[in-house]
């Protein structure tokens, strides 16, 4: 398979994935009937991913990370609504893309790997055929060509005994191997952006490390941008050049990974770091964060959703949506920024 050609040289201000003020909510019939506005699950989120960059999207379970990825792929559940903002990939507006445009994007530009890889694969179809389906959707290929390319893909993702595996069904493979197959499927798109939603959930430690190493290698080789979604701060630090931290559907901090983790600006990020095991720290040194994610169905949700757990909360945190500090008209990931009133 040909190596991914270099993307056209673009100025740094033109990102591959551009999310601006995006708000996504779920249609709540009861809320609409009662005259309440639909509360956004994701609220005014802005971030960028540059070509070839690895961005880690970090946050607790339920913070809306997966929802964002699904929105980028156009796979939002039917009950979800885009409430505002814009979403662009390679300059193309995704929010009003036609089904035909989505198919083109999914065949040539975007790809995603999911959690629970075995459940994400078709249980009644051999994986060789699933790979061939994917390959043949991009270009007309003979069966021999498709098989050869499928084999090559399996070898790319470091699956041993690849010819035998082609005839295997997902239930015959281990979780790690299923995830590699999902990766192979994603790679068949030769994507410019790969979304990896907690790709190591359910795998044992050694397999996790291997998968992530594979991911990193492939991303580097193909100059493929990656959005790595995880709740594991350590994993994000090890594999991502930049980080974005989410809390309850709001983006609270973003920037180069080492800056975000070594000098966190936002109280939430500091709390996450304090709760994350690090070399040299004893278990007793870890500090849990009080409380949990707020219930998004509440009518009295504070403007900054971390307000009720925040050690530095102010009165205006309840009523005013926190602004970014430092401000920038066109934020880029090189800029370490956080959305918190305590920074002003």
């Amino acid at each position: 398979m040909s190596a991914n050609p270099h993307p056209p040289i673009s100025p740094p201000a033109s990102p591959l994935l551009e999310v601006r003020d995006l708000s996504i909510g779920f249609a709540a019939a009861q809320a609409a009937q009662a005259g309440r506005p639909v509360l956004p699950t994701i609220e005014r989120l802005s971030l960028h991913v540059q070509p070839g960059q690895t961005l880690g999207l970090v946050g607790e379970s339920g913070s809306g990370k997966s929802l964002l990825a699904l929105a980028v792929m156009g796979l939002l559940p039917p009950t979800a609504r885009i409430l505002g903002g814009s979403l662009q990939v390679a300059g193309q507006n995704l929010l009003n893309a036609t089904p035909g445009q989505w198919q083109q994007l999914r065949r040539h530009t975007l790809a995603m790997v999911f959690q629970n890889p075995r459940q994400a694969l078709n249980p009644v179809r051999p994986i060789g055929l699933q790979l061939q389906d994917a390959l043949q959707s991009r270009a007309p290929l003979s069966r021999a060509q498709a098989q050869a390319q499928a084999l090559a893909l399996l070898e790319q993702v470091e699956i041993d005994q690849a010819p035998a595996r082609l005839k295997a069904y997902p239930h015959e493979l281990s979780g790690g191997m299923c995830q590699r197959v999902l990766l192979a499927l994603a790679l068949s798109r030769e994507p410019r952006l790969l979304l990896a939603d907690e790709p190591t959930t359910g795998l044992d430690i050694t397999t996790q490390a291997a998968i992530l190493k594979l991911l990193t290698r492939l991303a580097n080789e193909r100059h493929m941008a990656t959005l790595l979604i995880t709740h594991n701060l350590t994993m994000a630090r090890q594999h991502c050049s930049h980080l974005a931290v989410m809390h309850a559907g709001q983006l609270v901090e973003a920037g180069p990974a080492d800056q975000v983790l070594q000098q966190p600006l936002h109280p939430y990020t500091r709390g996450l770091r304090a709760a994350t095991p690090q070399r040299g720290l004893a278990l007793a040194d870890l500090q849990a964060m009080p409380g949990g994610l707020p219930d998004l169905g509440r009518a009295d949700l504070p403007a900054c959703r971390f307000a009720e757990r925040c050690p530095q909360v102010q009165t205006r945190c309840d009523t005013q949506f926190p602004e970014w500090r430092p401000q920038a008209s066109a934020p880029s990931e090189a800029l370490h920024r956080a959305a918190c009133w305590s920074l002003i």
Partner: protein
Amino acid sequence: MLTVLPVLTVLLRRALQAVPVLLGAALFTFVLTRVLPGDPAAFLASGPGAGPEAIEAIRHQLGLDRPLHEQLGRYLLDLARGDWGQSFITGQPVLSDLMLRLPASLELTLLAFGLTLLLGLALGTAAALGPGTWRDHLCRACCSVGSCLPAFVGGLCLIQLFYVQLGWVPEPIGRFDMVLVPPPPYTGFLLIDTLLAGDLTGWRVAAGHLLLPALAMALFSLAPLARVTRASLLTVLGSEPLRTATALGLPRRQIVLHYALHNALLPIITTLGLVFSYMLGANVVVEKLFAWPGIGSYALDALMASDHAPVQGFVLLVAALFVAVNLGIDLLYGVVDPRTRHLR
């Protein structure tokens, strides 16, 4: 085909599991006539005025004066040898009576089964592809009404509409027109025999006679199938493999065929056994209503005349059919779902 062997072993195991069912049915019929109150000898002897000597003679002839376990042994042996007793009404061996009438019932039941599949799958699929639309409501209405409408009432409504009012079908008595000459009985299936004899008019007549009773049976039995089709397809449409296929931008036709329908079929196939069992139950009343010369009406006539051997034979034959159909369904399931080929 190396996959044949495991399928065969599964089939063999299922066949062995069927033996207890058949034995159970035989035991059941044995118990019914021998152990429960009531004197079969007196029953059987009470045609021509019977004195005690006549009854005693019959009792000895039937072996009713032997100990129970001996009777059971003889009974099972007779069954295995093909001696299922003799019918008083016809004077023929029960087994040959049943075999003579079996094609009529089978033709009817198979056609009804085909109609059920067609209608049930269509309704369920339409409902699943358009949840909340009129198609969904139609499906649910048909299921509710269908399962509450006894087959004989449904049959009467169909007769009233299609014969009495509209005149679209021939007189709904029996399998064929009394005036016409029936085709030579190669298979006993009129639809096939008329074709083999090149008798197109005969074929139309036979089909016309088959339509209403088959439809009556189908309407009663389609509810479980439609419900399962709808539920299964809905589940599959929201499942992860389908999301993966969409994320890869696979062509829609391929997604529907290989990723949606193939997976949705599995619960549907397991329901087919239940559907067939509904049919066998509806068979008797429909045969009575339409004066259909099948095994159901044979057993009923025998029952009314207190001729017990045909009733026993009927129960055993139904048990055998039930077992055969379930074996077939298991085999079909093994073909469609690769995961079962390797279990146990």
